[in-house]
């Protein structure tokens, strides 16, 4: 990684500047907070209290409004982390490593939520908290991948090195996710053991899927909010010696 | 980044090199040019950043600010640091063999000759684990007689070496520079060679 392979567009270069990110992120942050709060509250209340019950699963189906966003986010965040890491490696951009690092905790949290809510959902639907279904197993493996990234990040004390190491692992992990998914699916269908499958997407009435849309979008905003906050924190930690930060109004208090 | 066009005859230049570790600036604005035949003694108190500088020059520590330049195309660098890079289970001769194999090859005769030069005659077939601290360092130094490197980067090469050994070593350094090589080394002991140039890191440290 001595030489950049591709030249970086100018706007991109600007985005890589910590100062720009700190300021622009500061403007965006409250907006994301508000939008995330509104969407999530709206979606959750709608889903809990107003959406009709499923004719098969009854009320337990309401778990979907938290389970599915968490499951979707757990995967997108890993992908996002790998993309940020790749950008960091290719263009030697410190900020990208910071963004990747900010993704870890929130991504792992969403994965845990997906697993736990899924497990809880499984009890009334399948009669067991856990079965070795393909999708469940691959989500579990995803959690392990997150755990690995997190542990690696913690184990290396030098920030720069930790950032690059994490990026490499995230990229390799991302390449592997589809392979894992595919192989796990195949493995499970081969043995044909569990007769349970996740309910295939039914043609839901709007009353049922609109709340889902709201919680999914809300979760994305919440993710963006957390990443902004954590990245700006890291900028504060690493740039505290620079003049732009010393004169920043966040610091001077003006 | 600007260096005189004659720089093509230089072996190594730095351009405003700086280093920061854990938010502590070790040195900054370091500009120097190493020409063939020079011997640089890098000085500084404990923790000044001598080891870090040598590792930056060798490419083993990331350079974030400034540049390290090797103007000539085929500059070969030999770096010997605090960790000697010897395999304890292998004999002195076997260690030299793989080290030399990294960018060339060597015959057993050459290796025995190199070991004799560093005063390890009779220890060629001892495993490195069986050698004393000073003898281990001598094995590592034997590489200097075996591999053809233009620039030697030596981090405290006198450590653990006895007095006669230090005298001999200075002699090798002298011969290497006379033969057109260059040496950058650190040491807390004085070097008694006339051509020594001193780079005092304390002059580049922030106040």
């Amino acid at each position: 990684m001595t030489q950049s392979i591709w030249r970086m567009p100018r706007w991109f270069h600007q985005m890589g500047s910590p100062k720009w990110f700190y300021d622009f992120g500061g403007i965006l942050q409250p907006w994301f907070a508000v939008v995330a709060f509104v969407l999530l509250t709206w979606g959750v209340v709608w889903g809990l209290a107003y959406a009709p019950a499923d004719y098969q699963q009854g009320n337990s189906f309401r778990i979907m409004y938290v389970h599915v966003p968490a499951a979707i986010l757990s995967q997108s965040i890993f992908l996002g982390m790998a993309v940020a890491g790749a950008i960091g490696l290719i263009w030697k951009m410190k900020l990208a490593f910071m963004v990747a690092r900010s993704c870890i905790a929130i991504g792992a949290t969403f994965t845990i939520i997906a697993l736990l809510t899924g497990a809880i959902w499984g009890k009334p639907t399948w009669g067991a908290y856990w079965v070795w279904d393909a999708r469940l197993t691959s989500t579990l493996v995803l959690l392990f991948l997150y755990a690995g990234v997190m542990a690696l990040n913690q184990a290396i004390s030098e920030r720069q090195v930790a950032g690059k190491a994490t990026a490499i692992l995230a990229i390799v992990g991302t390449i592997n996710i589809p392979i894992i998914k595919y192989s796990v699916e195949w493995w499970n269908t081969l043995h044909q053991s569990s007769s349970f499958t996740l309910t295939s997407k039914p043609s839901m009435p709007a009353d049922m899927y609109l709340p889902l849309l709201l919680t999914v979008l809300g979760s994305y905003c919440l993710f963006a909010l957390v990443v902004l906050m954590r990245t700006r924190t890291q900028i504060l930690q690493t740039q505290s010696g620079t003049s732009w930060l010393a004169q920043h109004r966040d610091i001077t208090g003006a | 980044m600007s260096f005189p066009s004659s720089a093509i005859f230089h072996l190594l230049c730095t351009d405003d090199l700086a280093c920061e570790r854990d938010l502590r600036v070790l040195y900054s604005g370091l500009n120097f040019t190493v020409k063939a035949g020079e011997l640089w003694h890098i000085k500084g108190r404990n923790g000044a950043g001598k080891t870090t500088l040598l590792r930056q020059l060798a490419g083993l520590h990331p350079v974030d600010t400034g540049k390290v330049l090797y103007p000539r195309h085929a500059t070969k660098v030999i770096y010997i640091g605090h960790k000697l890079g010897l395999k304890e289970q292998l004999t002195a001769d076997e260690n030299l063999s793989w080290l030399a194999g990294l960018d060339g090859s060597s015959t057993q005769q050459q290796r025995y000759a190199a070991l004799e030069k560093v005063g390890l005659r009779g220890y060629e077939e001892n495993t490195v684990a069986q050698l004393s601290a000073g003898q281990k360092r001598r094995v590592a130094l034997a590489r200097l007689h075996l591999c053809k490197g233009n620039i030697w980067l030596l981090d405290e090469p006198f450590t653990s070496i006895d007095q006669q050994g230090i005298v001999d070593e200075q002699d090798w350094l002298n011969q290497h520079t006379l033969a057109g090589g260059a040496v950058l080394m650190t040491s807390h002991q004085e070097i008694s060679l006339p051509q020594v140039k001193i780079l005092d890191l304390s002059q580049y440290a922030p106040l």
Partner: protein
Amino acid sequence: MIKFMLAIVRRDILLVARQPAEMINPLVFFVLVVALFPLGVSPEASLLSEVAAGVIWVAAMLATLLSLELLFKLDHDDGSLEQLLLAPYPSWTLVLAKVFVHWLVSGLPLILISPLIATMLFLPTHAVPALMLSLLLGTPTLSLLGAIGAALVTGVRGGGMLLTLLILPLYVPVIIFGSSSVAAAAQGMAVDGYIALLAAMFVFALMITPWAAGSALKL
């Protein structure tokens, strides 16, 4: 470059030869885990033959995993990794050379002893060729993928456990296809598909991992 790789291979083989325990150890671990399994579970032939494929593959994976920890660590600790990286060759050559020796020492003996192990777990004889073939394709893949983890934890104290965490998720597909192929063979089904997949994963790992591990080493 070939010369450089040969120098590393020669050195690493010499190191193993100097300490032969090193070589038989993954093997012994493999045998012990497989032997302990009936002790812990049940000595019944019917049950064992059912789980044999999986147990052998999991044991092979663990044996590989454990020996991986030292792949770069010893070189890092004594400073010889620095010297290897300073050599004027791309770092993937170094990774490839070291992985090759690792496989020679940990993977190959395992393959050679696998027929014996298969007998101990009552795996049907006609599944043994599939077992050996799948191990032949799978163990180098495990070594290669493991090299990424080993490179990443180099220099981290007590990285052995961390390594496990990093690479076990990557091992999932190999385990699945490896053990499925053996299980299919035991049931008399065709194994070509699995073997082709294992071969594809091997080629893929061969292309990706030297680069990834090489860059990780240079951090």
